[in-house]
């Protein structure tokens, strides 16, 4: 072995033995080696370590160093691989264009294989991969590098990456998996605010529909729902537009109707966990404020904005909506206000909606997640295909074990 190259890469894999890291690094220290890079993992009793060591200051011959390090194999039953490390290669590989890909869903064979094959077909390197949750439920996090990705002819680099993300989302739809893709400049920036579009992400659509049906029964003159109001969200909007038809309902009647509304499973737990992680929470709704009040009273949030029905001194609705009215169009302004109030930038915001018109504001933030989107293609960074809103936490790097530590009475943390 040549004396000129003094950088050595050391890899070892095998069953974990207590004290093994101390034994390896101790031996390197004894030979005056300086560890310049390290990655160590221990999962399910399996151990792996990768080191880059600079022996430039070591008086020991490189061959002797190799022999001494190879001895670890005999002492520990680990498989050890040693090589010289090319500094030029280090400089080259230090450039990267990373994205964090989180895949979430019900476990089934072939997910990792198909996703890996997809990346391979585009010459995308998988830098790191870790399982966040495994069991009936599956969640995996991959850091990919698209620096060497094959670019489509005639497309700009950014367009090719957008197209790749779209293809990956479609692949995950085929695999019945949710996927969230965060680019490096975004996922490395600390997030501070999570904003939810209430009707599209937190309220069960079925209960919203039930609510609409009941309110139509109770109002003195049934609202003329426009033909275009096909979804419950559209109908809530139509009620806001035709609030006069709600005239005469008492606050108590509204409170009873409010009881019909059901939150998606895990909503309160999600908000409590996000709050305990230090996030500020905002709820935006172009519907009625009693929808958001329910969440505020159960979980406490930092911001909640929705429309209020005007009530007279006897607690009877007047048929007017208090101004200013919040519409899908004004949600962006409110988000701007919250960011200004919190002194944060858009890329420090996580927004959750369904990617439809009512939650279009989620497109302009650091991380956008669409819950059960109605449209096949959304402009969000990620899609969660079920109404299990707790899955949002996996996109923030929490593992199943982390999630199990947050246990609230009555909660069911099975995402």
């Amino acid at each position, binding site marked *: 072995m040549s004396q000129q190259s003094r950088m050595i890469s050391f890899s070892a894999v095998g069953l974990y033995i207590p004290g093994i890291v101390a034994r390896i690094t101790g031996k390197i220290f004894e030979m005056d080696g300086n560890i310049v890079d390290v990655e160590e993992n221990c999962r399910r009793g399996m151990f792996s370590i990768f080191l880059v060591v600079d022996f430039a200051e070591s008086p020991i011959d490189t061959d002797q160093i190799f022999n001494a390090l190879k001895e670890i194999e005999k002492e520990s039953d680990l498989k050890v691989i040693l090589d010289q490390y090319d500094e030029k290669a280090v400089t080259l590989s230090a450039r990267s264009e990373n994205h964090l890909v989180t895949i979430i869903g019900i476990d089934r064979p072939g997910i990792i294989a198909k996703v890996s094959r997809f990346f391979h077909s585009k010459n995308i390197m998988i830098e790191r991969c870790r399982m966040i949750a495994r069991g009936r439920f599956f969640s995996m996090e991959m850091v990919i590098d698209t620096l060497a990705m094959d670019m489509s002819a005639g497309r700009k680099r950014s367009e090719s990456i957008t197209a790749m993300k779209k293809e990956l989302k479609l692949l995950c739809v085929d695999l019945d998996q949710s996927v969230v893709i965060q680019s490096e400049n975004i996922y490395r920036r600390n997030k501070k605010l999570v904003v939810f579009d209430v009707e599209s992400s937190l309220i069960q659509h079925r209960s919203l529909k039930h609510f609409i049906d009941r309110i139509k029964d109770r109002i003195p003159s049934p609202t003329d729902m426009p033909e275009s109001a096909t979804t419950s969200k559209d109908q809530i909007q139509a009620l806001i537009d035709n609030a006069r038809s709600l005239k005469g309902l008492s606050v108590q009647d509204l409170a009873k109707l409010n009881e019909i509304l059901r939150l998606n499973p895990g909503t309160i737990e999600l908000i409590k966990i996000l709050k305990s992680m230090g996030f500020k929470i905002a709820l935006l709704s172009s519907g009625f404020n009693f929808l*958001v*009040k329910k969440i505020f009273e159960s979980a406490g*949030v*930092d911001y909640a*904005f*929705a429309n209020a029905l005007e009530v007279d001194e006897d607690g009877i609705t007047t048929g007017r909506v208090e101004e*200013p*009215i*919040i519409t899908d169009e004004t949600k962006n302004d*409110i988000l701007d206000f919250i960011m200004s109030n919190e002194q944060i930038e858009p890329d420090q915001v996580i927004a959750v909606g369904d990617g439809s018109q009512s939650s279009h504001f989620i497109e302009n933030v650091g991380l956008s997640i669409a819950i059960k989107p109605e449209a096949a293609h959304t402009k969000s960074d990620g899609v969660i295909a079920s109404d299990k809103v707790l899955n949002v936490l996996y996109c923030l790097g929490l593992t199943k074990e982390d999630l199990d530590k947050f246990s609230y009475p009555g909660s069911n943390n099975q995402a």
Partner: protein
Amino acid sequence: MFCIETKKLTLTLEIVPVSSLISHEEVLAASANRLILEFKNLASLQNPIIIDENHIILDGNHRAHAFRALNFKFIPVCKIDYFNRRAKLRYWFRILGNIQHKRQAREIIESLGGILHSQPDPFTLKRAMEERCLACGIQYPDECILVDFPETEICDGVDAYGIIQVLQDKLTAQAVTLDYIPCNAVQEDTFPAQLKPDQLVLWTPQITKQMVVDCAIKQKVFAPKSTRHVIPVRPLNVNVPGQWFRENITLEEINYSFYAFLKAKRMKRFSPGMVLDGRYYEEELIVFYR
């Protein structure tokens, strides 16, 4: 002065001398001391206090007390027309816990000259108290009582709240716990079911705005936590720098700076029922921001 016209109320934001303020109720010592400590190194005052045209403090009595204690010259206020029908006068009721038996309160009330009249339900109690604005009430989980005191004992709202203070002091001296609760929370249909067997609610007298003004002008001060003013529109996040209140400048100069300071900010209106900075507001909000 910086005026904000809304459909419900006109808000006038300005800075006034602390010495011009009139308190209409006493402060809670613990809350006042906490604020004095906090304001010693005040970076900015987030929200103006609310006053009427006579400079009677409607909301922000503890902040004003802390400003006085720290010898600050000026304070930002939001001046409103108190007699606007949309500016509501509500009350703080008392929840007393760890009550051993019903006789406990009854004996003290009788020793103070009070006469007890049983009421069939909270609704009737409310109506009876509206007719006799100096009377108070007691609500047990299973019983409501109207309490009248003779005119020789109480002749105005300050006296009526004074006697409530004596009653609660005597009870807390017997290891009874004390909490304050907005009157409207108690008067909701679902409230009686939440009341525990060892608790009672002391309904405080339903005084009027005119009584508040009359007493304040005569410098008669209500017991702490008597009134609870619900202002239909509230300005928030004014954030006036703390150093302004210590500077030796004229009222005119400081108001000129204040106007320019507010003019440079953006304003956003929100309808009632919003949550901001973790607090639910039942009033319309005017929020300043940059």
